[in-house]
């Protein structure tokens, strides 16, 4: 059931405090209060300060709009935009709102056009979002129409700044957002460039689902190696992420807001796990065996120590690379209790048909029906339900306490801590005084 249609509602107003009541517990590093995930006021401020703040928001892959006139609908935060390639091959991003009376004029998912025409009164916009034509602008027989001082230039759509890197398109509302690479920080750029090396991408398809959880939980999930080795039988049994293999959870050094969780799969299909560790992992099973082991074939196509890397780029992008299945996921925040996830799966233009099929087969790991993806979606839903319905209102992040940011061990919440330290700052959230 979609969140907006939930038959059973939130338990009571304590879960939805106004901003002034949102004070972080004194032991801020080790605790997260529920209202971070359930307050409408917090959400509203996130839209202003984060999604419309000094951030680069993922909006599209260039391969989706390869030719002049190609466009697609998209989102920056929760705001509908259009992403278009103009005749000069540059890419523009502007709000999907007519400057006249406000109509969301671009209705098709994607397509190719010479201009955008608002259906209501047919004002037309060029491929950069500038107002181009106002029908009967001078009236009929000089009666009616726009005043002489009306300038099309004053009535374009709201246009965003755009940056691209190796085929990935970002947009920002702010004039102060630093250049993309600076924003990303060096290590993130390096890992980003592994799948996005400039090689031409081939789009394999889309998927969209609603997750009835707060959008930040998705970030946390990918800064949380602890869950990976416990929740996901497939990661564990097939040695994709188990104690003993080489792995990292990385937080960017500037702010701790971007990050990645990467691992290096050994060559064996089935993992060898120490008995001690097995005992801790209920999802481990010696019985889980595949009949079609092509699924686990790993074609080493990149120069990277990591066979898998899940990267989060603040505030709305996940770059997924798990063996040979790749995709980007965009987080669309949707009120405190919901988010929408848009998935774009891709390979490369020079993939052989068999390589494409290999990627598609491995794609069964991911997405809302994926061997891993299903489990994360379900778990995040359980969390939001737990928060919404309980009388208690605190969450504990004490694993690997005292550390923040990058960790090389799996049993750590250090990157979640660094994320929220940054978050408190950008959101201007006060921390309670320690009791004397």
């Amino acid at each position, binding site marked *: *059931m979609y969140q907006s*249609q939930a038959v059973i509602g939130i338990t009571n107003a304590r879960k939805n405090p106004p901003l002034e009541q949102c004070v972080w517990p004194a032991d801020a590093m080790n605790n997260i209060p529920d209202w971070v995930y359930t307050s409408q006021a917090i959400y509203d401020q996130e839209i202003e300060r984060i999604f419309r703040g000094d951030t680069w928001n993922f909006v599209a892959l260039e391969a989706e709009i390869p030719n002049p006139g190609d466009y697609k609908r998209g989102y920056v935060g929760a705001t509908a935009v259009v992403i278009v390639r103009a005749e000069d091959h540059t890419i523009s991003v502007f709000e999907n709102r007519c400057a006249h009376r406000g109509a969301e004029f671009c209705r098709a998912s994607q397509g190719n056009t010479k201009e955008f025409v608002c259906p209501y009164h047919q004002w037309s916009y060029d491929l950069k979002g500038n107002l181009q034509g106002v029908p009967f602008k001078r009236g009929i027989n000089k009666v009616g129409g726009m005043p002489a001082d009306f300038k099309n230039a004053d009535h374009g759509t709201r246009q965003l700044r755009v940056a691209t890197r190796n085929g990935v398109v970002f947009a920002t509302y702010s004039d102060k957002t630093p250049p993309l690479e600076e924003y990303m920080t060096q290590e993130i750029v390096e890992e980003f460039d592994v799948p996005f090396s400039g090689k031409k991408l081939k789009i394999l398809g889309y998927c*969209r689902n609603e997750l009835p959880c707060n959008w930040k939980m998705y970030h946390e999930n990918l800064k949380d190696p602890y869950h990976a080795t416990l929740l996901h039988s497939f990661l564990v*049994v097939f040695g994709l992420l188990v104690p003993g293999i080489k792995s990292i959870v990385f937080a960017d050094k500037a702010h701790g807001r971007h990050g990645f969780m990467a691992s290096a799969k050994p060559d064996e299909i089935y993992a060898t796990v120490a008995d001690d560790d097995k005992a801790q992992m209920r999802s481990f099973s010696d019985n889980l065996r*595949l009949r079609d082991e092509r699924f686990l074939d790993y074609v080493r196509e990149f120069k990277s120590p990591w066979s898998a890397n899940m990267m989060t780029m603040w505030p709305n992008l996940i770059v997924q690379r798990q063996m040979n299945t790749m995709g980007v996921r965009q987080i669309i925040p949707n009120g405190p209790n919901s988010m929408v996830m848009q998935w774009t799966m891709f390979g490369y233009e020079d993939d052989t048909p068999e390589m494409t099929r290999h990627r*598609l087969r491995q*794609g069964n790991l991911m997405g*809302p029906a994926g061997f891993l993806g299903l489990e994360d*979606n379900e778990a995040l839903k359980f969390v939001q339900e737990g928060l919404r319905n309980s009388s208690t209102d605190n969450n504990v992040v004490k694993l690997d306490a005292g550390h923040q940011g990058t960790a090389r061990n799996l049993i750590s919440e250090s990157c979640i801590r660094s994320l929220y330290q940054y978050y408190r700052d950008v959101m201007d959230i006060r921390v309670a005084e320690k009791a004397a």
Partner: protein
Amino acid sequence: MKDRLAYAKTTISPRRAAELRAEIESFHVEYCAALDANDVERWPDFFSQEATYRVTSRQNALLNMPVGLIYCEGLDMIIDRALAVAHSQMFAPRHMLHVLGIARVLQETGNTISSQTPFILMQTLVEGPSTVHLAGVYHDRFVREGERLLLASREVIHDTEILDTALAYPV
């Protein structure tokens, strides 16, 4: 796939279509009854050795995108999926219910029959209402094996462009 979504007249006589529809409906009821009983381990029984199975959105199909929410090449992958769902995946319990419209028989060539059947898949979570989880069309190719039909290919093309949370069971 895109061309298979365009309307094309059937090439089959009405009488033969009715016979085949009856056969296909007999297949459908068993397939759906097994899934609706959450008996996912029987699901592979309805496929031929070389079968392919895919669940994807109509949008993907119209764009000729090959991706699948579930994407299986061959019976072994289908069995691997069934076993994972039945034994190793974590998800909340739920009731599923397939309600099918009328089967449209498109073609019969030798042993092979192709058809389309609209479906509504209802999902009911614990303590919950019954909601439309997916609505779409089965695009099927059957092969005859003795008395039985088996799926050589099932493309589950769902109209639903935003999925509620997750898809736990095959469709």
